[in-house]
């Protein structure tokens, strides 16, 4: 009973663009910080992301988006999660999200929004301090 449980984070790329370098950098940084990162790859639909988060019992879901479709896709991810009763995950987003959209993305439910050039240490800190505790 001494297993210390690492934080489980799902990293996914919704939308149609195929560049996942940024997502992989974040995945590796979180792994090196001791987390278990489930990496699902590119072109994920909101349904796939929500279903994977459910099956993996992820505490945190991080989405990377470059296509500009965040205001269209993010609410659908939140809705799919809600439909599955996944109501206690921490959401964060990275990639290219224009400054004027940051507040909107936060209102959708993404507590953390990280633009290009973010120091991965900031993401690690954010996840560590905000990830929901699992009893």
């Amino acid at each position, binding site marked *: 009973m001494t297993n210390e449980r690492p934080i489980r984070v799902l990293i996914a790329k919704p939308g149609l663009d195929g560049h996942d370098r940024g997502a992989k950098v974040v995945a590796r940084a979180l792994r090196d910080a001791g987390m278990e990162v489930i990496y699902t790859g590119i072109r994920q639909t909101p*349904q796939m992301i929500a279903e994977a988060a459910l099956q993996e019992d992820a505490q945190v879901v991080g989405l990377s988006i470059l296509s500009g479709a965040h205001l269209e896709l993010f609410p659908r991810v939140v809705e799919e999660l809600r439909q599955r009763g996944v109501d206690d995950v921490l959401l964060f987003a990275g990639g290219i999200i224009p400054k004027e959209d940051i507040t909107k993305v936060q209102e959708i439910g993404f507590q953390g929004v990280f633009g290009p050039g973010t120091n991965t240490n900031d993401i690690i800190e954010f996840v560590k301090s905000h990830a929901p505790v699992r009893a």
Partner: protein
Amino acid sequence: MAQQTALSAPELVDRIVAGERRALARAISLVEADTPTGREVQAALYPRTGHAQTIGITGSAGAGKSTLVGALAREERKRGRTVGIVAVDPSSPFSHGAILGDRIRMQDLTSDGGVFLRSMASRGNLGGLSETATGVIDVMDAAGFDVVIVETVGAGQDEVEVATAAGTTVLITNPGGGDEIQSMKAGLMEVAQILVVNKADLAGSDTAVTQLKALLAIADLGAWTPPILKATAKTGEGIPELVDAIDRHQEHLHSSEHAEDERRALSRKQIVALARASLHRQALEVAHGSGALDDLVSAVAARRRDPRSAAESLLEAVKREWAASE
């Protein structure tokens, strides 16, 4: 973010039995973390196990296990069976972090309501895979999946451990893995009930089959002789034949003639493996905690003592500690 009120073990059990996938996901986490609730759930669900075909997929790194698990799951779905998958990935032992990437190759299965895929780090912990995998397989079995597939990293001990957790263990090798096959211990043959030469699209698969046959000839087999199959997991070729072979082995397990013996043999292996893992972990915890091990190490390294009597002393220290904590 607020902490969700944790469900009790009986609540989790009810929801899992009712088919609630979120409860299943949560229970797997608790079993994996070996919490008291996790143990309670496992114990309560155990009488409901026994419905699923449990299949272990093992073999050396890069043999194509993940690809084959995906292909296998698709074939099982074609046959109308629901599938639970436990994909075990190596974790970097350094920080205990891990990147689990098996979902990438099974994306189509994520959208299939008849499939539940769970990724797991092997953690490199002392208890090893057997404790966790056995529990997670049981929970998926009790949740009602027709087939439960576990993929494990083929690192030595794990191959034996997965065999204790699954009803049918499939060992994956490759063409050109001749040296590897030669050096494989006959014991490994004895834990696998089906042998697959994957990547049969590459040259040399017939040679690999011949080598496996030779190894089987000297293995100590029981009533079941492992078939040797060729497959190309990447294209799905040979996978229907693999499912047929698994079905035949499962029939063998359940046939009136062998069922009782096989069930007892599997239960015995599971109990012994779990007890050994637990003993190992507890003993080392005591040994490290008390500093007894370090003292003995110094004595043996300086050749003031022999390792064998040092091991005995260590065991004595562990027993004293246990007696004191009672």
